[in-house]
């Protein structure tokens, strides 16, 4: 037996509530984060990811209260992202109950942060999130939630942060995100052939076959999705059933 493929539901959180909206517009309230996380845990989620979508505007204390509320209810690995700028932000999140933190824009503005954080807290808790968009034959990296284009090539950047001590890569395809047309398997396949650390694929899940393909074709170690789980279009149990049918090992005996 080998490691199982991981299914990771993601909660977008703002001001202590789970929110949903398309491209961060028309945001609607969608529940209490701890309750939603608990439901996902009971359904068989292998990890929980929480993204603080406007951490830079909100007070951090709300975020920490939410992290703590989730950590008191859910006993599976728990990743928190959004607004992490310095070592102290990481320390506080870990103390509040996060097992891993996901760093995006700050990793680009201050690559030393990855090195220092992995040295201080261990690589296993440092996830580097990358937002990438196809640009000719390659993929470019964007910052600030996809607003600003950088000069970085996504695959080269992933390799660089691996070298700096990142424990995992969370790759979101901006071309696919929100389209429900499947993950960017070209990008992920290319990426995994260059990486030794695990890849979490994100962006584009719309139906069961997309999650199977992300693992079989894209070689992802884990698949992250928000809306399909959120709107109960597809249950986590149903995803696992489909993966098993395709000879992908998953965690059963929840």
């Amino acid at each position, binding site marked *: 037996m080998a*490691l*199982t493929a991981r299914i990771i539901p993601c909660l977008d959180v703002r001001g202590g509530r789970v929110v949903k909206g398309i491209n961060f517009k028309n945001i609607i309230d969608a529940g209490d984060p701890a309750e939603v996380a608990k439901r996902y*845990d009971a359904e068989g989620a292998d990890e929980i990811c929480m993204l603080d979508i406007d951490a830079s505007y909100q007070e951090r204390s709300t975020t920490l209260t939410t992290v703590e509320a989730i950590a*008191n209810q859910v006993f599976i690995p728990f990743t928190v992202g959004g607004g992490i700028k310095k070592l102290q932000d990481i320390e506080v999140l870990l103390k509040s109950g996060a097992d891993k933190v996901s760093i995006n824009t700050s990793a680009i503005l201050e690559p030393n942060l990855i090195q220092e954080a992995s040295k201080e807290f*261990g*690589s296993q808790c440092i996830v580097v999130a990358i937002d990438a968009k196809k640009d000719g034959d390659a993929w470019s990296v964007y910052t600030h939630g996809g607003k600003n284009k950088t000069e970085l090539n996504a695959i080269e950047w992933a390799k660089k942060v691996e070298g700096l001590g990142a424990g995992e890569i969370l790759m979101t395809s901006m071309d696919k995100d929100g389209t429900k047309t499947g993950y960017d398997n070209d990008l992920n396949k290319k990426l995994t052939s260059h990486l030794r650390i695990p890849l979490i694929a994100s962006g584009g899940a719309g139906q069961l076959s997309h999650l199977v393909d992300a693992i079989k074709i894209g070689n992802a*170690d884990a698949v992250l999705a928000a809306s399909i789980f959120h709107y109960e279009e597809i249950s986590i149990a149903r995803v696992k059933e489909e993966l098993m049918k395709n000879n992908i090992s998953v*965690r059963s005996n929840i």
Partner: protein
Amino acid sequence: MQIGVVDYGASNIFSVLRAVSHLGAKAKVISKQEDLKSIDKIILPGQGSMGACIENLKKKNLFEILKLSLSEKPYLGICLGLQVLFSLSEESIDSEGMNIFSGKVERFTENENLKIPHMGWNQVIFKKKHFVNKNIPNSSNFYFVHSYASKELKKDNILAETTHGELFNSAVIQDNIIGVQFHPEKSGAQGLKFLENFINWKI
């Protein structure tokens, strides 16, 4: 029942404390010798390298007293807390462990398709029936994060095995002393069951 959770300063003990409290037991942080007095059972969680762990325990004057208490109190070592029970680790060859299990902890053998650290959910095959794995279906998945493992051990001491490229000992036992390479505090319902069993285990 008071469960002592050892804090040697370089490990995230909060999730273990949360899980123990969630199960209704009283958890107490042990960061100095006196803290051990009213403790019924000991959990040593751990992250980082074995050398740093031993050095930190020694700095806090906890190494020798913990080693002594291993002869009487139920002990659960998690991850690095399992590894310190061995004589030594390839990771820190100059640091002598607690020597409960003779032998060493070794790095996974590199191969092209193997990801190190071994991180994620993997099957734990229990080799013995024991109170701590009561009501846990054999071959359940538990959550792992580590690069070093015990590969060779006397059969009597092997409580469970797991495969990551090669077979390793994912749980070890000797009398009142148990070590698990996985993280029960992060392994969902089965992990909580394991911790609950440890809390209720009577020697």
